[in-house]
């Protein structure tokens, strides 16, 4: 899934080699940092979730906190909500991105302004968009005000609840707004390298537009689409800010629930929060490994 963002075919010969020693030298600093901070964080978290407490002589480690968390009836509800948000936003973003990428590639491949403004959502902090979404779609938000103005009736009571709501509409909107450009750029890279020859060949053989899409374009963008969807899913599954800001008080997504436990005044809740954090990490890592396995091709270097 982590293919390099190569915009043109790589010029470097892939058989380039360097003495093993030099490679190790190049990689060591980064490996040290990642293993210590990332690995260390997860491992210490895992032990904390097993009940490890620093400064106590006799440690009794057990899976108790994991069991309590996993068998809590709220866990299934929370997992369901988190999966619903992650899957829905990934699916809608993916479909919109395919349409947008194909359209841009077909009609506006060289329009620099579109490419530039599409980068804004990519780089905008989630927090800001979350706040503006509240100001936009809350029952007293900008859209409700505009509706009241346009239809000359107070819509406050009839306006659908889109923030802190059952269907997490606000959360989904923020994620979709943020993630469409990401998937679109990943697809555009592949579409540009594909060129028009195949599509022209298909057209000259009498394939309809739909046939050309499903038997030429889609197979070519499939890997890149899968990889970017996997990243979007992993992100939306584990993100905290947006569901915290725009979600219901109950049920909460797994990350929000985890942090609530972690920061609870009752310190006994903390190991359960950490256990939830580890469970989230396991789910995300499994998704990545699974997609890596499913999209692997025999001759890929990376």
């Amino acid at each position, binding site marked *: 899934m*982590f293919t390099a963002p190569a915009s043109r075919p790589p010029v470097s010969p892939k058989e*380039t080699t360097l003495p093993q020693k030099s490679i190790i030298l*190049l990689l060591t600093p980064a490996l040290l940092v990642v*293993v210590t901070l990332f690995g*260390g964080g997860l491992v210490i978290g895992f032990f904390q979730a097993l009940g490890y407490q620093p400064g106590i002589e006799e440690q009794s480690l057990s899976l108790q906190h994991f069991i309590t968390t996993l068998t809590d009836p709220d866990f299934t509800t929370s997992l369901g909500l988190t999966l619903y948000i992650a899957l829905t936003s990934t699916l809608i973003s993916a479909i919109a991105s395919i349409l947008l990428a194909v359209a841009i590639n077909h009609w506006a491949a060289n329009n620099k302004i579109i490419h530039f403004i*599409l980068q804004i959502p990519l780089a905008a902090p989630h927090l800001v968009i979350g706040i503006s979404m509240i100001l936009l779609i809350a029952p007293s938000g900008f859209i409700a005000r505009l509706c009241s*103005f346009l239809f000359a009736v107070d819509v406050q009571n009839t306006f659908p609840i889109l923030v802190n709501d059952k269907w997490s509409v606000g959360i989904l909107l923020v994620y979709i707004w943020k993630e469409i450009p990401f998937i679109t750029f990943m697809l555009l890279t592949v579409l540009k390298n594909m060129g028009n020859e195949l599509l022209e060949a298909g057209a000259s053989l009498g394939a309809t537009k739909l046939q050309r899409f499903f038997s030429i374009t889609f197979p070519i963008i499939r890997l890149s689409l899968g990889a970017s969807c996997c990243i979007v899913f*992993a992100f939306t599954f584990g*993100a905290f800010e947006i569901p915290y800001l725009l979600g219901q008080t109950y049920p909460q997504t797994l990350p929000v629930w985890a942090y609530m436990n972690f920061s609870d005044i009752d310190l006994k809740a903390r190991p359960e929060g950490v256990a939830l954090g580890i469970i989230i990490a396991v789910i995300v890592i499994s998704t990545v490994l699974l997609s890596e396995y499913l999209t692997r091709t025999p001759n890929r270097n*990376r």
Partner: protein
Amino acid sequence: MKKTNSAQYTIFVLVLFTIIVPFIPLILWSLSEQWFYPAALPQKFGLRAWNYIFSTAGEQIIRGLVASFSVALTTSILSLFIGYPAGRALGLYNFKGKKFIALLLLLPIVVPPLSTSMGLHLWFLHLNLTEHFLGVVLVHLTFCLPYSIYVISGVFSDFNPDFEAQARSLGATSWQVFVRVTLPMTLPGVTVAALFAFLLSWSQYLSTLIIGGGKILTLPILLFSLMDGGDRPVASAISLIFICPVFVVLAASAQSLGRQGLRGIR
């Protein structure tokens, strides 16, 4: 050709509109002094929120800006220095166990900061790094570094090492090769890597909160407490300040990448 133009125009308007929409309420709210429901526009425009930010709460906001900026700057510089060699190794060479190492180095991009921060908190507590600038930098480094490696390895997979060989055959030392050949050739991509590592750290909320413990008051932390406080004009104005670097970074990276653009960068 006419059809292409109108289609291009439609896409352009659609994209532009969708992207601009979230900024409209922010701008309106930050400029409103009185905006009772259900008026479509503020009844009274004014600069109360901006005045408040720059005078009454000025000191707090400036401190937030400085905290956010120094954390993000330190994190992105560290990410760059540590990530550059690793990015080269992954982008340019084949070696045993490359797939595994690439996966290990890049996994922190997708694993949520929440999971690692909670474990690191206990450890940093021991090392006296919680509620400390360095602790926050280290927790941001956990995912900013892998991100830089990802971008830089992309830069190096487009890099042709023959240029280095030529410089060496002309008698250049390793240092000269690096300064005169490798660095200038990879600089645009590396700048982008640094800028985006900066943004990634700049936007962080939860990991800063967990490790900083409310003592390292970066802008996102201030913003969250303002949203809880319910002062919409001020929260909107700070949101706009908070998003400023995004435009600076995008303009700078468009400049530095030229026509190549920013594909595949997140």
